[in-house]
């Protein structure tokens, strides 16, 4: 391993460990301020994580190994996604194609869903059922949006997204459309407002959170960190698509641009969380179909362009 690769890995490790929790902290504080509440400190997620790690974990006797291993499996899947995608603006240290990324995301979702059903509680099963129904919309959207990006950049390796030199003369709306679709999918994955109330305590309206109700202690800490990482990586990928439209070539500029765009998306998420109300469960397909249609049109335009 050369020195530059080691440097890159170290930088990625620092960024993947610190940035997600920082972003979640910023999101929560900003949302509280927008709602005229004082809100938590920006660094509160770090303290929460430390507190959860120290606490002991209570596990129901009815659960099997699936429940115990699911947090680790899903976190590992997301760490791998963070390793194979250029979400932070620079080339990923490990080469991976978009099929692998979709597979890893599905693995994480499956692990959590199985764990939720493993507990045998009504809310867990309901959450798993809802989450898997939403994934009917999310997965094709992600596949198509990333395929459109792959068609534009000319290869299935997502690292192509970090090398904009191959994308000459704009993308004729392909990348903005794909970014919009991916952003919608990210809103579902990270349970943001029009889809799900991220701060709700009412189990009946929960989708993703309902699956995590039984977790406590260190396992909950893993899941909290996983959801923060998920937010960062998905927003990072959206930022890559948008940055390629702007054709920014210098690695440092791309890195700064990515950070800025991720921050913009977080601010937008805080504002939308404040402004919007949760959609009725049966109205969700009306919204999510737009992600599917946008990514489909993006794919078509990309195919025509090539």
């Amino acid at each position, binding site marked *: 391993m050369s020195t530059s690769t080691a440097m890159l890995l170290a930088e990625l490790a620092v960024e993947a460990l610190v940035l997600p929790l920082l972003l979640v902290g910023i999101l929560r504080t900003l949302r509280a301020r927008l709602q005229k509440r004082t809100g938590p400190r920006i660094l509160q997620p770090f303290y929460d994580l430390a507190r959860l790690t120290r606490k002991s974990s209570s596990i129901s006797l009815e659960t099997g190994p699936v429940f115990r291993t699911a947090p680790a499996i899903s976190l590992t899947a997301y760490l791998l996604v963070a390793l194979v995608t250029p979400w932070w603006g620079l080339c990923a240290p490990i080469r991976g194609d978009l099929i692998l990324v979709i597979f890893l995301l599905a693995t994480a979702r499956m692990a959590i869903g199985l764990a939720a059903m493993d507990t045998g509680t009504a809310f867990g099963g309901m959450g798993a059922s809802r989450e898997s129904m939403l994934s009917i919309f999310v997965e094709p959207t992600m596949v198509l949006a990333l395929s459109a990006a792959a068609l534009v950049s000319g290869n299935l390796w997502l690292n192509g997204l970090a090398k904009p030199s191959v994308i000459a003369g704009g993308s*004729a709306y392909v990348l903005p459309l794909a970014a919009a679709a991916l952003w919608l999918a990210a809103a579902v994955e990270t349970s943001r407002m029009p889809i799900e109330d991220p701060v709700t305590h009412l189990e009946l309206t929960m989708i993703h959170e309902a699956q995590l109700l039984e977790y406590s202690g260190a396992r909950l800490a893993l899941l909290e960190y996983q959801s923060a990482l998920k937010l960062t990586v998905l927003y990072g990928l959206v930022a890559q698509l948008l940055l390629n439209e702007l054709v920014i070539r210098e690695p440092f500029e791309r890195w700064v641009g990515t950070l800025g765009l991720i921050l913009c998306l977080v601010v937008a998420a805080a504002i939308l969380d404040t402004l919007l109300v949760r959609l009725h469960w049966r109205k969700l397909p009306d919204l999510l179909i737009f992600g599917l*249609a946008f990514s489909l*049109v993006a794919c078509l335009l990309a195919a025509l362009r090539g």
Partner: protein
Amino acid sequence: MNAFDSLLGNLLLITSLWMVGITAISTKLTLYSVQTLAVGSLATLVGVAHHEPALVFAGVGVFVFKGIAAPLYLAHLTQAVGCRKDIGSFIASPLLLLLSAAAVGGLFLFHPFQQSVPPAALPSIGVILAGMILMVSRRLAISQIIGFLVLENGMFFFTVTIPHSLPLLVELGVLLDIMAGTMIAGVLTFQISDSFEHIDILRLGNPRK
């Protein structure tokens, strides 16, 4: 057809398909206004570049009347009649959105009638298709008018981008027709809503109801 034209064509196509998927009238009018302003400015620019005063005139006309006045008037109508959303379409609009995206995709990929339709005209054909879908699928009269206007946008974009020397009188005639059509449709909608207290065309079948 240059890159700018194809960018605009894609914008038109995206906004038209977007309109197929939504039910809120005001959002639809905003999207329609955006695409019409884009078409109007394109026509003006093309006219200036090719020194065709008639095209400049047509472009400015589209920009002012169809891009600003017609949406404002239709928004006023919507307010006056008091319908903010489509009360229903013959197919659920999300499904329709996917179907029309697939239809446009099929149009692009298979490209029928290659002798008469050049590849550059495909986006405008797609817009015309989306306009037709909008027209036939909605039950609300205002939505059908918007569909008709989108269809007309597609036709105007087609005539502006493909042959620059087409008789412009025809285009102006189309423009005037559309304005008249909008006005008449508006007045009719008003009348209908005054006399029947709804603008759902399904319920117009039996006037005695």
